C-alpha cells in the first residue's frame, strides 16, 4: 500500500521546551492512523506543524499526491488546505456559529466558488455559469448533510446545533474541501457512547468511500481501538510505539506511559 504522509525527523522546539523530538512515522492511504499519548505528549503540536499553524524547527513532512511528493513545509496557513489539500478539525469546535449550517459548508468550498464567481464579477452579474456552480456546491453540501442526518437543519445557525452534531458538522465541513488527508483533533471529546458510535461510522465511511487518509488524535480508546488501522504512541514528544491497535493494547511501553511503572 502506498504511503500518503511521511513525517521525517520532525522536531519542534518552543524556546527550551522540546515539544516534538525527532518524530518519524508514515500514514497510509485509505487508513485511519491514530496518534495517542498522555496529555502534553505533543499530539496537537504535530497537527499544528502538519497544517501549517507552526513552522517545525527541523524535519520534513511529505504528502504523496498521485506520483508527486509535496513538502508541507513549503505551505503556510491557508495554502495547506487550499493547495496541499490537508484539512483539519479542532479540539475545541471552530464552526462559524452565527452562520447557517449550509453557509458553513459553502465557506469550505470558497475557493472553487470564488473562481466560478469570477472573483465576484460574474456573481454580481448573476451569470448562469456561477448560478450552476453554486447549485452544485449546495448539492454537495446536501450530500454530506444527508450522510450525517442534518439536512433538515441546514438553514439553522450552526451554533444552535447540539454538541455532537456540531462535531459531525465540523468533520463534513472539512471534507467539503475534498482533502487528501483529514486531520481530526479529538473528534470524540465530549460525545456520549451513542454519538461516538455514530462518529466511528462516519469516519469509516470517509475512509472507505472517499479514499481519504485520516489522521486522528484521540483519548477515547473505544474510538481509537475500534477504527484505527495504525496507531502511533507519543510520550514527551517522542514516539514510543507504533503498530496495529491490538499490538498497541498489549505493548508494555504504552501501558507504562499511561499507567506508570511498577515500583
Amino acid at each position: 500500500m502506498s504511503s500518503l504522509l511521511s513525517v521525517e525527523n520532525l522536531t519542534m522546539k518552543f524556546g527550551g521546551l522540546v515539544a516534538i523530538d525527532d518524530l518519524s512515522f508514515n500514514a497510509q492511504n485509505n487508513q485511519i492512523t491514530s496518534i495517542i499519548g498522555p496529555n502534553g505528549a505533543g499530539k496537537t503540536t504535530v497537527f499544528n506543524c502538519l497544517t501549517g499553524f507552526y513552522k517545525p524547527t527541523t524535519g520534513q513532512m511529505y504528502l504523496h499526491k498521485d506520483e508527486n511528493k509535496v513538502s508541507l513545509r513549503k505551505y503556510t496557513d491557508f495554502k495547506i488546505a487550499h493547495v496541499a489539500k490537508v484539512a483539519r478539525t479542532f479540539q475545541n469546535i471552530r464552526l462559524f456559529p452565527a452562520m447557517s449550517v449550509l453557509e458553513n459548508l459553502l465557506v469550505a468550498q470558497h475557493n472553487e466558488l470564488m473562481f466560478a464567481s469570477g472573483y465576484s464579477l460574474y456573481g454580481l452579474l448573476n451569470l448562469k455559469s456561477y448560478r450552476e456552480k453554486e447549485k452544485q456546491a449546495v448539492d454537495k453540501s446536501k450530500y454530506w448533510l444527508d450522510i450525517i442526518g442534518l439536512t433538515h437543519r441546514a438553514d439553522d445557525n450552526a451554533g444552535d446545533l447540539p454538541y455532537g452534531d456540531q462535531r459531525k458538522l465540523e468533520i463534513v465541513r472539512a471534507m467539503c474541501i475534498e482533502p487528501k488527508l483529514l486531520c481530526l483533533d479529538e473528534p470524540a471529546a465530549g460525545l456520549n457512547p451513542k454519538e461516538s458510535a455514530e462518529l466511528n461510522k462516519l469516519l469509516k465511511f470517509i475512509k472507505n468511500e472517499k479514499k481519504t487518509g485520516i489522521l486522528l488524535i484521540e483519548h477515547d480508546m473505544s474510538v481509537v481501538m475500534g477504527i484505527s488501522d495504525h496507531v502511533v504512541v507519543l510520550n514527551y514528544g517522542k514516539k514510543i510505539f507504533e503498530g496495529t491497535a491490538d499490538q498497541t493494547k498489549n505493548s508494555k511501553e504504552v501501558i507504562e506511559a499511561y499507567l506508570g511503572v511498577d515500583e
Partner: protein
Amino acid sequence: MEKQDIIKSFKDSLFTGLIALALFGPIVGLRTVSKGEGLFITPQWGIVFLLVGLCILGRFLININSAKKTEFKFLSSFSSKFAHITEDKAKHFAITGILFAVVFPFLPFTDRYFMDVAIMILTYIMLGWGLNIVVGLAGLLDLGYVAFYAVGAYSYALIATTFGWSFWICLPLAGVFAAFFGILLGFPVLRLRGDYLAIVTLGFGEIIRIILINWYEVTNGPDGITGIPRPSFFGLPFKRSPDEGEASFHTFFGLEYSTMHRIIFLYYLILVLALITNYFTLKIRKLPVGRAWEALREDEIACKSLGVNPTNTKLTAFAIGAMFGGFAGSFFATRQAFISPESFTFIESAIIVAIVVLGGMGSQTGVVLASIFLIGITEIFRDLEQFRMIAFGGAMVLIMVFKPKGILANRKPTILMHGDKK
C-alpha cells in the same frame, strides 16, 4: 413587595441622586456670565435640584419596577412589535421606506430645512452602509472611516477644481482613490484584530486629517478648498442666469427659477448613491466573498483551515468599504462646494460607527433606523445648542439599554436550502 426592598431601593436612589448632584452641580449649577471686565459665576441651584430630584425619582421607579419583576409594559410591547414589523415584513418595510424617500421632496410640509436634514441623514445612511461592509460583515472595527470620506471629498475637490472635469467622471475616480487608501490601510493592519485594529485605524483617520492640514501646497491646509463645482443635471447647470448660449436647468424645462431645484437634485443624487451602496452590499453578501467576510468575522483560524485567504478577504472588505466612503465624500464636497479638514474629525467616524453598531451589526435596515434616530434627534434638539449632544448620548444609552445587540440584530442566512418557510 417587602418593606426592606423599598428601603433598599430608596437608599439606592439617594445614592444615584448623589452622583447626579456631583455631575450636575458644576456643569449646570455654575453658570459663568461675562459682565464688564471678567467672568462672574451665577449659581442656578434651582435647576440642579430639579434634575437631581428627577434622577432620584426615576431611579426609584426603576428599582420598584425591577423588584416587582415586571418590565415597563409599554416599552417591551413596543420593542417586540418593532421586531415583529422588521423581521416578518422587512421587504414591505424597505419598499415603503424607499417610496417615502422618493416622494419626500414633494410633500406639502417639506421645506428647505427638512431637505437639508434629509440629505444629511441620507449621507450618514450611505456612510453607515459602506462601513457596514467593514464592521458589520467582515468584523473589522474601523474607527478611522472618516479618512476615506475625506480622501473621496478631497480627490473630488482637487480633480474638479484642477481639471474642471464633470461630477460624473470625478465620482468614480474619487471612489478609486478611496479604495486605494483602503488597501493602503489594510496592509499594515492585516495581523491586527479587535482593540489593536481599532487603535491603528483611529490613528490612520487622524494621519489623513493632519496631512490635509499641513500639506498646504496641495490641500490649501486649514483654509480648505473653495469653489468646488456644483453638479449639473446631465450638463444643465442650476444657475439663475446661465452663460451666453448655455441653457440652465430652469430655462431648459421652462420652470420658474428656484434654489430648491438644486437641493432636490442633490437629494435624489444621494438617495440613488445610497441605494446603489445598499443593493451592492445585499448582492455581495450572498456571493462567496461576502460569506468569507462573515466567516472571517466568526472565526479567522477556522477560515484558514478551510483554505480561505484571509489577506485578500480583508483587503477587499477594506477597499470596497472605503470606495463607498469615497463616493459619499465626493457627494459631500459637491454639496458643500467648500471643504476643509475640520469636516473630517474623529467625531464623524465615531458617529458612523455608532450608527452601524446601534443599528445592529450587519443589518442594512438597522443602519437606516439608527441614522434617522441619531441624526434626527440631534436635529430636533438643535435649539438646546451645546446640550444637544446630551440628546445624542441619551439616544445611544436608550438603544443600548433596550436593544443591546442593536435595533435589528437578527441575521438572515445568505442562502437557504429549504426555501423560505413563511
